[in-house]
């Protein structure tokens, strides 16, 4: 059954969706998440060595710059890809940079504590918890797609994914990729690198999602030969 949406609400919703239509937002979030992971890979240690310190500083500065100028960077990229193809509409009133940070930190905060705990457990317990986490992730996936929330069984993961779904647009790559990433980290990743691998994986998933969306968008919307107006 088609649900009638008032034209004003529909126009607003379409403008909101348009911000995410080309995947550029996810690409920038992914790149920024990887920068964050770089800062985790090269934390300052004693005695200080020039190269790791320099890498850590560059990654940290770039991360802060991208986080602060997220909207401007996205707009700059869109001005070269999206606006000439399908037009310009003002970006959503809610600040997408906040949404991006919310998603990144929600997912990070969600994944890290269980992962840290799992490092100290026996192999069998780790497997059990991993399977439980995957089940919870599958449940979260179903919740998101059925627009149905069962708060009694709501976990941090599902809450984070619901927040992400409401503030962001992403393809099936993220809901499928996150449980697989969790599975990989809990079983194969070195114990002391679990958190870093998680952030790297998150960044790569966002980039993969953004790239897939961007390629689809570019194929569907070739550049017009003459300016529209």
């Amino acid at each position, binding site marked *: 059954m088609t649900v009638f949406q008032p*034209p*004003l*609400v529909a*126009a*607003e919703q*379409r*403008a909101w969706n*348009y911000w995410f239509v080309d995947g550029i937002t996810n690409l920038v979030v992914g790149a920024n998440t990887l920068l964050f992971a770089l800062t985790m890979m090269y934390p300052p240690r004693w005695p200080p060595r020039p190269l790791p310190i320099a890498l850590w500083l560059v990654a940290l500065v770039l991360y802060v710059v991208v986080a602060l100028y997220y909207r401007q960077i996205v*707009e*700059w990229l*869109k*001005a*070269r890809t999206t*606006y*000439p193809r*399908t*037009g*310009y*509409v*003002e970006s959503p*009133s809610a600040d997408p940079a906040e949404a991006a940070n919310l998603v990144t930190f929600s997912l990070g905060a969600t994944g890290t504590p269980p992962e840290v705990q799992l490092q100290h457990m026996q192999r069998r317990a780790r497997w059990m918890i991993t399977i439980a986490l995957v089940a919870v992730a599958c449940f979260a996936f179903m919740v998101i797609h059925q627009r149905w929330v069962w708060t009694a069984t709501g976990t941090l993961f599902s809450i984070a994914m619901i927040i992400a779904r409401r503030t962001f647009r992403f393809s099936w790559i993220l809901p499928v990729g996150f449980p697989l990433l969790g599975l990989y980290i809990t079983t194969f990743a070195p114990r002391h690198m679990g958190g870093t691998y998680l952030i790297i994986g998150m960044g790569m998933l966002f980039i993969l999602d953004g790239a897939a969306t961007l390629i689809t968008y570019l194929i569907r919307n070739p550049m017009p030969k003459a*300016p*529209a*107006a």
Partner: protein
Amino acid sequence: MTPDLQALATLDRVIHEPARLMIITVLYAVNEADFLYLQRECGLTQGNLSSHLAKLEDAQYVLIEKTFKGKYPLTICSLTQKGRAAFAEYVQKIRVVAAPPAHGDRPSKARHGKNSG
């Protein structure tokens, strides 16, 4: 003409035209949009959209600015305060016209059938 029906005659004709109503609805929902976006959203041809935008601009409902985003030239359209007020008033009037009758006001089906048949 009854006073109730007279409300229909006071509808803003500039907005009431379907294509212009679409344009204004989109611009009311988003603060600003360019020509290409409006064209795609409303499904209008370039010439058609141009002429309707010109009429809305003449009525001082829409502001049209030519600018650049990077190297790409944009014709950005936005609603003026006057345009927003006119649209809000139009919506208010349409709501009154389309309001469902109070319980008991509408003749029953059987009676309606009897009268008409």
